[in-house]
């Protein structure tokens, strides 16, 4: 009896190289598919560059000009000046590094804690699941911002790493819960069972079989967590409950409101609005870009054209 070859494909595909399309190429494709995504991507890149190179654009301390205190918007000061005549634009640019680094770290910690916890809880159902879920519930229920405020009195999170860590600690709950429920449903999916049947290690199953399937969710969450972390962090600085150095967007907000009287006097308004503008622009970029992430991680959308 010959090998039955009934499934001979009719529309012969041209043999392609084995490695297929690279992730980055496909990602780029999905980014450029829409104008809004390109704008979002550009904004994110802009801010990333700002965070990396911003501080090198200016001398290590920004020049002050006591004759241009709260100067209005002009060519020299595109976003006006602060209480000592330093350009707000320069402050925003040099301040981006801390804000973005801490937020990125925070999002990273959130995603890492959340994913690992969620994967473990969802895959190894049983006592580890119960324990992890109790902890997760605990962190989900405690209102995280007040917790951050309280923690700020114990712990000096002046360094972006510490700030990121604490932001991650307080916000991984939602992520863990979502990843767990996805893992729970994925582990019922045939391919996980099949992988187990084939004797693949739990490590392989968790991180190579299941993880890629939640990757688009993780990618989206990474981005939304970044905004969440930026808000929380800037919020902490704005309230002034953490010790801070100047040149930080949240500190600018704090100073604009509580020392410059931006709320009571239009002179200092640019000082208030520049960090707000930066925040909103970054958020906009992330929101626009988010659209592309789902597509980037979805193999279904990779090849079909």
């Amino acid at each position, binding site marked *: 009896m010959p090998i039955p070859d009934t499934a001979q494909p009719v529309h012969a595909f041209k043999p392609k190289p084995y490695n297929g399309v690279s992730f980055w190429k496909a990602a780029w494709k999905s980014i450029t598919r829409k104008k809004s995504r390109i704008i979002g991507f550009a904004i994110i890149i802009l801010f990333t560059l700002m965070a990396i190179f911003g501080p090198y654009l200016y001398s*290590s*301390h*920004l*020049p*002050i000009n*006591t004759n241009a*205190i*709260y100067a209005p918007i002009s060519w020299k000061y595109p976003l006006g000046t602060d*209480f*000592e*005549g330093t350009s707000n634009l320069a402050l925003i640019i040099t301040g981006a590094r801390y804000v973005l680094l801490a937020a990125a770290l925070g999002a990273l910690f959130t995603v890492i804690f959340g994913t690992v916890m969620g994967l473990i809880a969802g895959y190894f159902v049983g006592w580890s699941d119960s324990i992890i879920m109790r902890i997760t519930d605990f962190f989900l229920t405690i209102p995280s911002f007040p917790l951050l405020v309280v923690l*700020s*009195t114990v712990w000096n999170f002046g360094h972006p790493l510490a700030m990121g860590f604490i932001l991650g600690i307080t916000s991984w709950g939602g992520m863990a819960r979502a990843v767990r429920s996805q893992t729970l449903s994925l582990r019922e999916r045939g391919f996980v069972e099949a992988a187990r049947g084939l004797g693949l290690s739990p490590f392989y199953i968790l991180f190579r079989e299941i993880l890629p399937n939640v990757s688009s969710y993780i990618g989206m969450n990474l981005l939304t967590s970044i905004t969440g972390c930026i808000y929380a962090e800037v919020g902490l600085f704005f309230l*002034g*409950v*953490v*010790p*801070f*150095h*100047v040149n930080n967007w949240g*500190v600018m907000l*704090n*100073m604009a*409101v*509580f*020392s*410059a*009287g931006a*709320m*009571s*006097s239009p*002179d*200092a308004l640019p000082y208030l609005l520049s960090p707000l503008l930066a925040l909103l622009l970054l958020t906009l970029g992330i929101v626009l870009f988010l659209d592309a992430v789902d597509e980037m991680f979805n193999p279904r959308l990779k090849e079909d054209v």
Partner: protein
Amino acid sequence: GSQSNNSNAKFTTVYYYHPISPGAPKNPYNTTGNSFTSFDKMQLAWSSGLATDLNKFYPGLAKSWSESPDGMKATIELQPKAKWSNGKSVTADDVKTSMAIAFTQGTAQSFSLGSVKVLSNKKIELSQVSGGTYKSFMHDALQQTVVPSFQYGKLLPDDIWSVIDQSLYAGKDKTKAAQAKKAQDQLTKLGKSITKFAPKTDISAGPFILKRLNPGEAYLVKNKYFYAANKVKVNSVSLRNYTGNQQIWNYLIAGQLDATPFTSMPKNILNNALNKKTNEKVTTPTYVAASLAFNQKFDPYGNVNVRKALAYVIDREAVQKVAEPVVGKPAKYTDGITDSAAADWIDSSVRSKMNGYNHDLDKAASILEKEGFKKKDGKWLLPNGKPWTMNIYVVNGFSDWIQGGKVISSQLTDFGIDAKPTIVSSFAQYQADMAAQKYAVGFWLNSLSPNLYTAYARIYGTPDGYNILNGKLTYYDQKDKTKGNWIGLPEKLKLSTGETVNPGELTFKLNQLKPDQQKDAVQKLALATNEYVPMIEIWDYTHVQFVNTSRFNNFPVKDEGLMNNMPGVWMAMGYVAPKASK
């Protein structure tokens, strides 16, 4: 006809002594108690707070007062018409009870009160403890709060005065000393229960009485039993809770405040406030200065020449212009007291010996070089070759400090010292950390009062290790980290006049001298401060207040001493009248 119309006018201001909280008892001894100085919380008299005339008082419940020539006794006569808001008369007994309570609060001890003698229903005599040397005895006594004996008396045991007597024993007898200790403990315990006491009704002998309050404001109405009720032309007062300068600016600019207490503010806010024609600015002197202080434990600030060099580097005028443009004046001299006070105290001969530390970068550089510092690539290196970096600590919410710290950092950085301000989240934290010697450089308020002892104690008191324990001066070395000595000057300072002084002792002595005897000590202290620069004075504050004339007029703007007091005092003195509205 318009009288009744105006009587509805509500006088609005901000009460900044303590937060207004509905839960707090209506008890003046409670630090957050809902009892409001000058409105329903009365003293015997109100100090003018003027350095030039420390003993100038405005009458409160006391109509007149006199002091024995040796300063050991004060005789006080109460307002004959003074009554509590339930119609009962204010008597000498009330004062005696209040003084007994003052012992339980620790305040009576602080001005060496020894005994109280009721001379008549409205007359009372206060005496210092035997052997007491406190020179501001009457000054402090007059500022004691007076509460009704019928309300508070029952909180005290009948033998309260014998307990007080026992507690005051300072001799060598061991049994008596033990007894005194026990009595002191009993007083402390009593004090605790008194601060917790929550009277059912607010009984006031002041011009107003508390009607209602919510977490944001207190509402008081006129007390018809007030002894000078006819002088009080305001019918109701709304006291808003103080939450921050920004809030006051907002109210001020919106024209909602009839009197605005002192707030620090940037120039744009001032301009905006004055845009409102009915806002009137009132400036009076204050005795507070902002300084940059050093902890000499940290390298290189233990070196006096380094501190001097830094004083040359800082351009105080530029700092003040940014940080405190409205209510500040650049400090001329680093001498421990404000320049306005110094004018009265420092002779020109001494003054001429003082260094103005005028902005002079070359001089600073040459001093540093002499001390072994080197400049490399525009940056100063410490004598040990390490880079020189500096964190200037300031406090969140103290916007002038933050901005000052920022400007000073810029100046220092320009000069070649990497400096940056670090903002501590709360003042409580700041003070705790400061005392725990965590900061090398930070801002400090000095010269807090017209009283020179209090002024110099800001430097040569606890911060430098000098404490008064049981009336005796005790010194703690900086090595004992728990005692709060964060300045760390040597105990003995050799002055350029050749004299060697102990600033802690000199300061302590101020406490026991009459003002006219203080001058010599003050000049030595000022010179020592100038030569050893424990802190660099940056700016002096001026007391800028606002009154709003759209609803009320006849504010005591000419009377500096009165302006230093709360509006309740103004009203009791017949100031502030509703405007005839159309």
